[in-house]
């Protein structure tokens, strides 16, 4: 496609850079390719505790497939006392986050699925209710325009998705300033740091420092 603001090659490049840093800090992101084609996506599995108030994170499980094991890729970095306090009325939820490229919108899209440890999946209502308080107002303005269930474009399975139609708008605004001062920005890092927290995915600050170190 001509006149690509953020083409697929760009997407793959920034994901590769992002994953490089993820491997350095043991953050668990991997690149997966679809069979028989060059399409690929970034993914990460994470466990979170929901104790009726704000979910707290257990961190990333050791990734079996990382090519570059680091010292951090050992046990779940859990603070035992934290777990004891919230264990009473809490449940552990497994989240799988996937970052794919949308040819139609020419932006990345965040897909995810969530299930309890017994395999029972969370419902759309569970997901909407789990959205952090500071994003709740925006969600309630139009939940059906924000987070819905859709078919994963590569796996063909049901996933939840954060709708991408407004992505171009806010990313243009985000990228304007650094571009003016000729500063390197990893599109994926910036984008994911905005979208991720809405659905419980937080990025360690070191990602931002990693990008500026490339200058």
């Amino acid at each position, binding site marked *: 496609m001509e006149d690509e603001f953020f083409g697929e090659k760009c997407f793959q490049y920034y994901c590769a850079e992002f994953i490089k840093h993820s491997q350095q800090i043991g953050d668990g992101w991997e690149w997966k390719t679809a069979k028989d084609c060059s399409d690929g996506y970034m993914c990460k599995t994470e466990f979170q505790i929901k104790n009726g108030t704000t979910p707290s994170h257990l961190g990333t499980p050791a990734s079996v497939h990382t090519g570059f094991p680091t010292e951090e890729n050992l046990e779940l970095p859990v603070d035992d006392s934290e777990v004891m306090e919230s264990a009473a009325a809490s449940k552990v939820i497994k989240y799988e986050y996937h970052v794919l490229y949308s*040819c*139609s919108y020419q932006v990345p899209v965040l897909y995810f699925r969530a299930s309890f440890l017994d395999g029972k999946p969370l419902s*759309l209502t569970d997901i909407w209710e789990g959205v952090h308080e500071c994003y709740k107002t925006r969600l309630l303005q139009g939940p059906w325009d924000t987070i*819905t269930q859709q078919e994963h474009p590569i796996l063909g*399975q*049901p996933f939840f998705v954060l709708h991408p139609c407004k992505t171009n708008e806010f990313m243009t605004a985000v990228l304007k300033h650094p571009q003016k001062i000729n500063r390197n920005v990893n599109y994926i890092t910036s984008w994911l740091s905005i979208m991720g927290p809405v659905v419980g995915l937080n990025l360690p600050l070191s990602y931002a420092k990693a990008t500026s170190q490339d200058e």
Partner: protein
Amino acid sequence: MTDDKDVLRDVWFGRIPTCFTLYQDEITEREAEPYYLLLPRVSYLTLVTDKVKKHFQKALRQEDVSEIWFEYEGTPLKWHYPIGLLFDLLASSSALPWNITVHFKSFPEKDLLHCPSKDAVEAHFMSCMKEADALKHKSQVINEMQKKDHKQLWMGLQNDRFDQFWAINRKLMEYPPEENGFRYIPFRIYQKLGLSTLYYPGTMQTKVGLELRERDLPASERYLPAYASPVLGIKWPV
């Protein structure tokens, strides 16, 4: 577009005679007779089967009823695919009526999207329309429409109102006279797994909305057993 009105109407009013039967392992309190219905090709299963649901629920106990889902010869039917697409993909070589099995238990979480309400169908439909316009007009036409226009598109589909639907959809099918067409033509190609692979020349791939130049297709490939969604009003450019 006006000279295509007959074709558009034929596509819109296409129907598939269907026979719904309750899954044999469902526990029934009374006999559940099969239910016959003409399904609109351009619509979605969960949108047009309220009567089917009511009919079979009468035969079941309240506690045995959860989310309805449909299956054809062991394959769970994805309600988010247009009905005509499902039929063409799975059952077109079988004799009519199309025999669909109705389930109220053991929802296949790994295969099917949930459909908690009509809002889910509307959200999916509108999301498809928006994605199509992203390709056709960089989303300009659909974003400039008011909420009531979006609602009219949806209500037109939901209530089977051709004129109501096309009053708005025609704006999505227009392009400035100085340009020769849309920026990109949105279409989806669905292949049944296990069939021989279609050969795709260099500029085509099985993705939504790739640039398609007619001259790149060898003549034999101009007819594809593909489902070009009539809801989007796409004609195969032959």
